[in-house]
């Protein structure tokens, strides 16, 4: 047919998905330490959770403040199911426990979503916030189900081992998570190619118009909400197997905020954005939190700058540069990137030294008057140190700002050229 080309064997797509599978497969061979394997497992879980959140945020335009309710309740149902398997009351293999989490997520999103998706926009956001508070409050009241302060613990080595897989070693758990990650990512990608997925984008863009092309927007939101809840529940179920303990914080507002923050950082406007977000989420909460007590402050600052200067997240930064590269113009901005990068690092180091000194003064003053910072000894009570830090920060900030202005002019010139080129190609 002349009208359109549908390529069932899209080579690029096959390459990307094969690479994704390969990365999942070989990662634990490259990063073999215990910490790495644990982190890789957590990344898989975070990727599923952030992608499921993005069905709401990026694809449906629904700003939810309570997505952890569904991953968290999925976790709880999964750990109870796991304990039933351990007790011999339930005969399902451990490999399928995450599905229990998924079904729980589906069930609760069906229940709560009926109320939340009645409205869109700000009202929707407010109702999800209320739901999140409600469930979090309940988790502290009903300790039979939620386990109170101590949470509910379980043992993933339960039931009959299948082909020697006991889920004792962490790497076995990693591969279980990797399989789920691959399948869930593929399914969520497939969702974006279905009529419901596309109409969900239309509802995001212009809900009023959707009503006039035959679709009930409330139903579209509700169905999407349930799908997001299902995948969140799977992430929760995997987390239960991974950690073997579930505490009230998994349904808490901090976790919900984390999904929002990292999905946004990764980039809500592109499908793969939340994958980056999920990876960052684990890097930040495991590595950055080890490095400094002020990690949440740094995270907040990064988020702030991202919202202000790159609201499309890291994914959109990548895509913008790919576009420039595809027009052969990336070479021109390399130098600017280098200056910007060095400037940003210097600003960060300067500001970081002051943040660390403040934290030390407020939290660890009893530990003495010096801190170690990048191999240097900083005296937190010496005016000289503060002056030096301030001077370094302001100087590098000045350099950065100059570089930024230069870069912005250069960048918009390139963009204008590209627009012109596109127009020219269209008229050909």
């Amino acid at each position, binding site marked *: 047919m002349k009208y359109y080309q549908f390529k069932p064997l899209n080579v690029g797509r096959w390459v990307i998905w094969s690479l994704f599978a390969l990365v999942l497969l070989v990662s634990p061979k490259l990063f073999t330490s215990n910490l790495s394997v644990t982190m890789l497992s957590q990344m898989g879980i975070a990727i599923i959770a952030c992608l499921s959140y993005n069905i709401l945020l990026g694809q449906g335009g629904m700003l939810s403040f309570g997505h952890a309710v569904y991953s968290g309740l999925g976790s709880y149902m999964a750990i109870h199911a796991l304990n039933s398997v351990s007790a011999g009351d339930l005969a399902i293999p451990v490999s399928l426990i995450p599905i229990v989490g998924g079904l729980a997520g589906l069930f609760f999103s069906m229940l709560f979503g009926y109320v939340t998706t009645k409205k869109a926009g700000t009202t929707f956001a407010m109702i999800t916030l209320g739901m999140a508070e409600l469930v979090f409050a309940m988790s502290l009241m009903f300790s039979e189900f939620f386990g109170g302060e101590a949470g509910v613990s379980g043992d993933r080595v339960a039931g009959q081992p299948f082909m020697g897989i006991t889920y004792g070693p962490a790497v076995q758990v990693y591969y279980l998570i990797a399989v789920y990650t691959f399948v869930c990512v593929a399914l969520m990608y497939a969702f974006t190619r279905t009529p419901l997925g596309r109409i969900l984008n239309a509802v995001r863009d212009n809900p009023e118009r959707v009503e006039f092309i035959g679709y009930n927007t409330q139903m579209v939101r509700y169905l999407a909400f349930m799908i997001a809840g299902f995948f969140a529940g799977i992430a929760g179920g995997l987390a239960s197997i991974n950690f073997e303990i579930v505490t009230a914080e998994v349904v808490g507002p901090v976790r919900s905020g984390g999904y929002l923050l990292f999905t946004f950082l990764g980039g809500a406007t592109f499908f793969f954005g939340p994958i980056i977000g999920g990876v960052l989420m684990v890097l930040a909460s495991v590595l950055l939190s080890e490095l400094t007590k002020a990690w949440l402050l740094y995270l907040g600052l990064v988020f702030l700058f991202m919202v202000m200067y790159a609201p499309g997240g890291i994914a959109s930064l990548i895509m913008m540069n790919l576009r420039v590269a595809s027009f052969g113009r990336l070479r021109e901005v390399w130098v600017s990137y280098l200056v910007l990068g060095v400037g940003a690092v210097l600003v960060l180091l300067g500001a970081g030294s002051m943040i660390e000194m403040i934290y030390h003064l407020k939290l660890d003053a009893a530990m003495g008057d010096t801190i170690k910072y990048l191999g240097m000894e900083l005296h937190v009570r010496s005016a000289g140190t503060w002056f030096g830090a301030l001077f370094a920060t302001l100087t590098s900030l000045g350099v950065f700002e100059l570089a930024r202005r230069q870069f912005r002019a250069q960048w918009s010139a390139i963009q204008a050229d590209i627009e012109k080129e596109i127009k020219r190609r*269209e008229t050909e």
Partner: protein
Amino acid sequence: MSTAMPPTAESQRFEQAMSHVHAGGFALELRDLRKSFGKTEIIRGANLAVRSGERVAIIGPNGAGKSTLFNLISGRFAPTSGDVLLNGARINGKKPFEINRLGLSRSFQITNIFPKLSVFENLRCGVLWSLGYRYTLFRFLAGMDDANQRAEELMQMIRLDKKRDTLAMNLTYAEQRALEIGITIAGGANVILLDEPTAGMSKSETSRFIELIREVTVGKTLLTVEHDMGVVFGLADKIAVVVYGEVIAFDTPEAVRANPKVQEAYLGSVLADQQAAEAGH
């Protein structure tokens, strides 16, 4: 003593069947339609009966209630009283998507498209429900040949096939207006409401656009709100004059032009203005 029988299923079916006969083949009918916002009555007993296949232009001074009338017909607002009948069936109080599924589609005065979707996706979204795909979750769009083909055809009809993958927000104003019409007709509705389709367009754009509207609405019942009298008299089979929330005249263009009531209430001043404007140039 009353002889009325309680309604049986059979008698209800008979009533339903008869309602078509009463409607006398009208595609769209308004019966004593009223709408108030607070204490202000905007539509004050509008009556109109449009035959299937007719092109009707609705004219009237600003604030006469033309857009409100469209909003009542398309389900955006529910009428305070009175009836709207689509192909003989009452639709007042139904939701916009329910009315759309019954075969009525509308466009908007202020461009109302899906800005972050491509031209092709905009049109395909408009097509999906009518082809029965609804909330489909287990089939890929790429494999839906009928929907894709229909979207491609629509794209050629509204002459945007060169902009297939352009995001709707990056189109020119006139192209967005064309896309708006494309989305409106995409679902194959047989009653089409266009709310000031040529608003904000230049004279040459307008005349090309009217041609387009004529083409894409062949065989359909068309209602359009329009200010440009040249367009009105060129396009419409019949003209409905709305003044102060009532349809004061509904007839052929010639008859409406000659109608003294219309002259007095609206047309006289408008035509004089237009003549003055043309003389001035």
